[in-house]
Structures are given as structure tokens and as C-alpha cells.
């Protein structure tokens, strides 16, 4: 089966995505926690292009970019699929994953973290969340009855965002405005595998608090 290593950072939602997928499929792996202010020579060797985490190394072959890693995991270990069989449904899952990474994540980071006094940034983030809210209509998970690719990619929304809101008082993802997303988040976090893959909330809250005080809003 081969040796699986994950170079990551436990407090990074991108890194956690990879762990969720591996754990869902019951794959054993070694986790190497990187210090991003002092990146290891191995990380730089395995991801010379971007020099970022996460990187999955399987039998000495490195793969970078979390969405690419998730597809690789899906194709290599066929148990507990995270993508549907039907090509159209697969295309939809990939579409939404891309939407989350390319549109939602930058907007959410801006509204919740980088420019947290900026009302316009918050409105823009809310508009994007509304699109995801509608996508969840009538579904338990983005993946349907079970956790799938899109749920994994939305992990920041499911866990980090709530904790950041708790610290800053931001009211972006609320039950009144986003009942489906809040319900989804609850279901998502009820999964023991998901919970195991995330840093405990008290650790993350502490990290968020110290990051925010070191980085005042623009």
C-alpha cells in the first residue's frame, strides 16, 4: 500500500482537508507539522513551485495543492468515496469546490480577518455564502447523505469561521441569515472523523486571539 506522509500545519483548514479525506478512507499516515516561518528542506524539495502546505507524499511521490491532493486520494484509495460516480455530479462537486477556494475563501478571509471593519467586505462575503446556502437546500451535506469533496473543502466555513466570529463578534454566518449552512456545520462537526482532524477549539481560539491582536484590521 505504501508510505503516506502529510506535510501540514494543524491549524490550517487546507491541511485539515487532507487529513479528513485520509481518515475517512482509513488510511494511515505520518503527519509532519511544519513551521511556516522556518520551512523544512523537505517541504521545499517536495513543493518547490509554491513552497506551501499541505503536501501529500505517497511512496516518495509528492503532490501539492489541496484540491489536487483530494482527487489523488479519491483515485488511489477507493473505499468511502468522496466524489459521486455520475460525471455530471462530479462536475458539480468540482465546480463548487473551485467556487469555495477561488471566491469564498478570499472573501471570507477579508471580511472575517484581514479587513474586519469593512462593511462592504462583509456584504460581499454574505452574498457568496448565500449562493452556498441555496446549494444546500434539501440536503444534509453538500455531498448529499454523506460527507463529500465539497463538504471537506468548505471546512473553513464549517469550523474556523464560527470560532473567529466568537472572538471578534462578527455576525456574518448567523442562523437567521443562513439556517442551512448553520445546520450543515452542526452535522459536519458531529462527524467524529471530522472532529479528530481538526485542532481542538480551545487551541484554535487561542491561536485566533493571538493572531488577531498581532495583526490589527486594515
Amino acid at each position: 500500500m505504501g508510505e503516506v506522509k502529510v506535510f501540514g500545519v494543524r491549524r490550517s483548514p487546507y491541511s485539515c482537508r487532507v487529513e479528513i479525506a485520509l481518515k475517512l478512507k482509513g488510511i494511515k499516515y505520518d503527519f509532519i507539522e511544519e513551521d511556516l516561518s522556518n520551512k523544512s528542506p523537505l517541504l521545499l524539495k517536495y513543493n518547490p513551485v509554491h513552497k506551501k502546505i499541505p503536501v501529500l507524499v505517497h511512496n516518495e511521490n509528492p503532490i501539492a495543492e489541496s484540491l489536487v491532493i483530494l482527487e489523488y486520494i479519491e483515485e488511489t484509495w477507493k473505499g468511502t468515496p468522496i466524489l459521486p460516480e455520475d460525471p455530471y455530479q462530479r462536475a458539480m462537486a468540482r465546480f463548487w469546490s473551485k467556487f469555495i477556494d477561488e471566491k469564498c475563501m478570499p472573501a471570507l478571509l477579508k471580511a472575517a480577518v484581514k479587513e474586519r471593519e469593512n462593511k462592504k467586505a462583509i456584504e460581499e462575503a454574505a452574498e457568496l455564502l448565500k449562493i452556498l446556502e441555496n446549494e444546500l437546500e434539501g440536503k444534509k451535506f453538500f455531498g448529499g447523505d454523506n460527507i463529500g469533496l465539497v463538504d471537506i473543502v468548505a471546512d473553513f466555513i464549517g469550523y474556523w469561521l464560527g470560532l473567529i466570529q466568537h472572538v471578534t463578534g462578527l455576525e456574518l454566518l448567523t442562523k437567521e441569515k443562513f439556517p442551512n449552512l448553520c445546520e450543515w456545520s452542526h452535522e459536519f462537526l458531529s462527524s467524529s472523523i471530522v472532529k479528530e482532524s481538526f485542532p481542538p477549539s480551545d487551541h484554535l481560539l487561542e491561536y485566533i486571539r493571538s493572531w488577531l491582536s498581532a495583526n490589527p484590521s486594515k
Partner: protein
Amino acid sequence: MAEEVKLIRTWSSPFALRIVWALKLKGIEFETVLEDLASKSPLLLQSNPVHKKVPVLVHNGKPVSESLVILEYIEETWKEKPLLPEDPYEKASSRFWAKFSDEKLLPSVWTVFISQGNKQEEALVPALENLQFIEEQLEGKKFFGGEKIGLLDLAIGWMADMVSVLEEVTGLKLIQEDKFPLLSAWIEIFADVPEIKESGAPREKLISKFQAIRDAYAATK
């Protein structure tokens, strides 16, 4: 079964051209719906309400958006003449570099061509670095896909047309043969593949279009 395949695109979009290439390489019959982005059709807005962009592939009434997502959909729906390798690691590599092309390479090359003077000098640094990464991917290969064209060739195929047009518009030779021998050779072989050759947008039209864009950027400084 009667298949209905429509491609909503503009005459010049390099992202849409990828889809034309893929459909032609797999021998799939399709209908083109040309869009005027200044006046988007109800069909486009219905088919891609999230981004309102081209290309959109509509297969038997069901729309798929985002060119790389569309390419994967085509690959999985029409299995003849595969564009992706079988091996999961090789597949991952193609996907990684396709993402790199869209997120890093294309924007950095574009910035070189719309900038002037000092800004252009600065823009050259990341663009040349990115081109070097891609150059290395061609080591020992005819196409990015190996012996045959693959998904990564289609993803990077915008270089074949667009770069020479941009070089003509700006007078700046970005992909110099001595610096990028493999990429230069690939551009020629790729452009020569019949399905690619017959699909390009009219060169003169592209030159006018990019000249106008570059002038507009210079005017807004």
C-alpha cells in the same frame, strides 16, 4: 441516443478554445453558441448564474461551467481518446500544472504584456520563473501529455496563439528559443496538430483586440 452538445463561448476566449480542442480531439459533434459579453444572452445567464462567464458546456440541457471542470467532465463522459493518463500520480501532476497555468503562469504573462516601462521589467521576473517551471515539465517529452496531446497541453495551449500575438503587439519576445528551447518546440508542434490548427481565432482580429486592451491600460495610468 441523440446527444445534444452546445458550447457557449466568445470568438476569442482562450478558455473556451480549450473546450473546442477537447471536443474535436474526441470527435464529439457540438454546436457553438457565440456570446457577446457586452450583452449576455438569457441562455448564458441561466446556464452559469454564479459566474456569468464563458465557456459553458451544455450537454443534453445540463450546463457545466469553468473550463478545467468542463475538460474533466468531457474526459469522464466520452472515454475514447483519453486526455488524462491512467496513473493517479501522473493525473495529479497534470492537474497540478493545469492549475498552475491558470493561477500563476497566465496572469504573470498577461501582466508583462499589459505593463509598460519599469512595471514591465518587474513583471518579467515572476513570468520568466513560471515559464522556467513549465519548460522543465517538458523534459524528455514531445507533448506535456507525453507522446500524445493531453489535458495539460490543452490547459497550456493558450500560449501557442496568445503569446505570439502579444509579442507582436508589444514588440517584446518573451519566449526566446535559446532560453526556452523545449517550450518553443512544443508551441510549434502543438499549433500544428490539425484540430488545433483549424480552431484558432483569426490572428489579425486578435492583434487588434490586444492592441486595444494594451492601449486602454496605458491610458488609465
